[in-house]
């Protein structure tokens, strides 16, 4: 259980670090001025990578389409907004999301298509695993005793992982039965 906590903490730390490190890319700040049509001049959008104190019409609108007297009137109608983003965060998030999605899809393909095929090939081995699933929950506590006593005698990592996976599969099957088949929970 603790490993999940450490993984989360690590991910959070990565996130915070990345957002600090990549926030000050010069391309990631901009001042966007939208100027509506004025007399003969058409509407225009001006963008420049300036900081907050320079984010006004005079600095950003370049070249100025109107002459000296009208500049003030033109600039009054323009609206300038300062915007910031973090391109590193976006890149990191999307790539991380796609990789997690890809991993889940691969695991799903493995569980639904490949594993039954492999099990059919290794027929003898599959009999042993099937019997575990059939014990059922007639005597839940007796089963727990059996499982524990068996695993203590051969306590290596692979065995534990296999048992944990079987337990998880059984839980998901129960959930699937109550949600999809019997419609008992979550209509």
């Amino acid at each position: 259980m603790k490993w999940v906590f450490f993984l989360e903490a690590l991910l959070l730390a990565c996130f915070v670090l990345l957002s600090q490190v990549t926030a000050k890319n010069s391309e990631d700040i901009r001042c966007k001025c939208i100027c509506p049509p004025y007399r003969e001049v058409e509407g225009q959008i001006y963008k420049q990578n300036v900081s907050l104190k320079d984010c006004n019409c005079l600095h950003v609108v370049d070249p100025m389409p109107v002459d000296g007297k009208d500049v003030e009137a033109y600039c009054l109608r323009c609206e300038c907004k300062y915007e910031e983003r973090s391109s590193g965060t976006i890149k990191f998030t999307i790539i991380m999301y796609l990789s997690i999605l890809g991993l889940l899809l691969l695991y799903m393909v493995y569980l639904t298509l490949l594993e039954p095929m492999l099990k059919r090939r290794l027929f003898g081995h599959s009999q042993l695993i099937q019997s575990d699933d059939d014990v059922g929950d007639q005597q839940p506590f007796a089963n727990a005793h059996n499982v524990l006593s068996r695993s203590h005698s051969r306590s290596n990592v692979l065995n534990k992982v296999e048992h944990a996976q079987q337990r998880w599969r059984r839980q998901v099957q129960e959930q699937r039965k109550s949600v999809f088949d019997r419609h008992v929970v979550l209509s």
Partner: protein
Amino acid sequence: MEVAEGVSAATPTEEMNGAGNLMDFLDEPFPDVSTYEDFHTIDWLREKSRDTDRHRKITSKSKESLWELIKSLLDAWSGWVVMLLIGLLSGTLAGVIDLAVDWMTDLKEGVCLSAFWYSHEQCCWTSNETTFDDRDKCPQWQKWAELMTGHAEGAGAYVLNYFLYILWALLFSFLAVSLVRVFAPYACGSGIPEIKTILSGFIIRGYLGKWTLLIKTVTLVLAVSSGLSLGKEGPLVHVACCCGNLFCSLFSKYSKNEGKRREVLSAAAAAGVSVAFGAPIGGVLFSLEEVSYYFPLKTLWRSFFAALVAAFTLRSINPFGNSRLVLFYVEYHTPWYMAELVPFILLGVFGGLWGTLFIRANIAWCRRRKTTQLGKYPVLEVIAVTGITALLAYPNPYTRRSTSELISELFNDCGALESSQLCDYVNNPNMSRPVDDIPDRPAGPGVYNALWQLTLALIFKIVITIFTFGMKIPSGLFIPSMAVGAIAGRIVGIAVEQMAYHHHDWIIFKNWCRPGADCVTPGLYAMVGAAACLGGVTRMTVSLVVIMFELTGGLEYIVPLMAAAVTSKWVADAFGKEGIYESHILLNGYPYLDVRDEFTHRTLATDVMRPRRNDPPLAVLTQDSTTVEDVETLIKDTDYNGFPVVVSRESERLIGFVQRRDLTLAIKNARQKQDGVVSSSVVYFTEDAPQLPASNPQPLKLRRILNLSPFTVTDHTPMETVVDIFRKLGLRQCLVTRSGRLLGIITKKDVLRHMAQMMNQDPESIMFN
């Protein structure tokens, strides 16, 4: 409460950050005497007393040494640490979800060539080739037709774009439903009805687990990006509660006590709403009003802390590029006029009516899904609904884009800078005034065009949301309801605006609208409409108003929002008292005793208690004359959750109550660990062993698992009082006595069935214990 002897030796993890090694998570958790079975209700009183015992033990030990003192301080602070962690993780996950949804929604239409991970807006962020009229277009982002064939315009390109849009939508929803089906079936739906039930004391194992958290986050992005008419707010509450459950397991104070765990979950729900809307105070009020069952004041402060941390984390990730938390944050301060209350109240009525219609239609459709063949094809259903949605949504530009963007555009006011169709007013070409002082103008052809497109969008959304909510993918309904309300509000707003312009010599408008002054703000009407529809569906009151004004930042608009919310709640309550979440709880038969229901019938406890006249007599254990074999037979033959213990079958005077699970475990344990305990051993609950001849086998003492203070009422207690006791104390069962002799038992299921019967509902629909 005491743990039965011998079983405590097998409890898995010790105190706070105990000596568990990496492989412990792989072992099966050993069932403890104090844990509950799946789909059962917890005993609130027992949890509370266990927590008080634990606290007293720690306080008394803290005086012994410095280390114990530090441990007691850490224990006191563990609550705040959990809140901090919940806020951090919820904020991070919400940021990830927002960024991923932003990108994947745009993926249906095109792709950014310079960097594929940018959405449309981000791709065109730095380009200088945007013009005023085509402010969204830039050469780096190309639609699929343009990428594949090189043509950007034309009928062929349109058809190709249409086809690819539908294809992407189908792909996303198919992936979502497959992932839910294979990995975590509990990740579907909104989650709020089940969380309400869990917080009232019900146990659903796995509902707030790690796989559910992972799958819900991943498939929520897919479901929202596929263009379906659903939102992500409800599922975000579920995600936040999963985070809460995850961090509870770090501290034994919360992992071993179901009552304390629910306090943490209440606070986590507040954090979930806070990141969904960017409304921390609204989130706390939502948790208080809608989700939580018991909400002590201590939880209020901690929820606020969790909500703030979550909002702060989301802000520092900064998904929208301008330090705003939610996509539709608007800031205008135009005043509203008293006469506008009439259309606001009309919008409230519309919201209430729509809420009733939606709840009735959705429940009917969900019931059909539960009982007929439709429920056997969840994947096909999702694909069919997505296909229909995509097919009908693409032609209308208002439904083609994501619902959040639609709401954002509808909430925004039209200044001279807007170039959308909705703002195509006829401008006076000689205008030389500054931007904000534009008087009301007549609508140009673009506005009328937009109006009928919006009407079509309204009808489409009303119909399709009924079929979408409740499917086997994560689906929320805040955003679709707000969209329906916003569209209706904007239409009404434009209608009022044009009426004010064309008939400015009527009496109402003469005082209100002066020529040259800002008269009607259609964006405000959209906001009020959104609040009305959301209130009509969920029946939220205070939390709705607070969320809406935190969304908009406009404290001036509290009165219109309140007027609409109150009106919609009144109108909707006139047709049916339950909101959408309570209706789903009733549909599923969860044992949820609503605090809002009033029980006003004059029945007595004898009318409800079991056994009834024709039933077999009450299954009891005696104080010192039952054998182990009798107990085991009793457990095997019946499925009652507990048994009263009486002095003897003749006198029937009550001693206490013993739980079925405790009995099973204690007897199993005794058979294995203690010598001399056989089937004919006598089970006794008294302090001293009964006098038996020496030839009898060794008796078994089970006083430790006996609850010596069960709740009792007399047979003439009115059911009103009994229901109140169940509600306020969170009881599971209550014994009925007369003159000190045990008569029968009332369980929570009996109470719920009785209430359903009194309200002419089907009492057999209450399914769980």
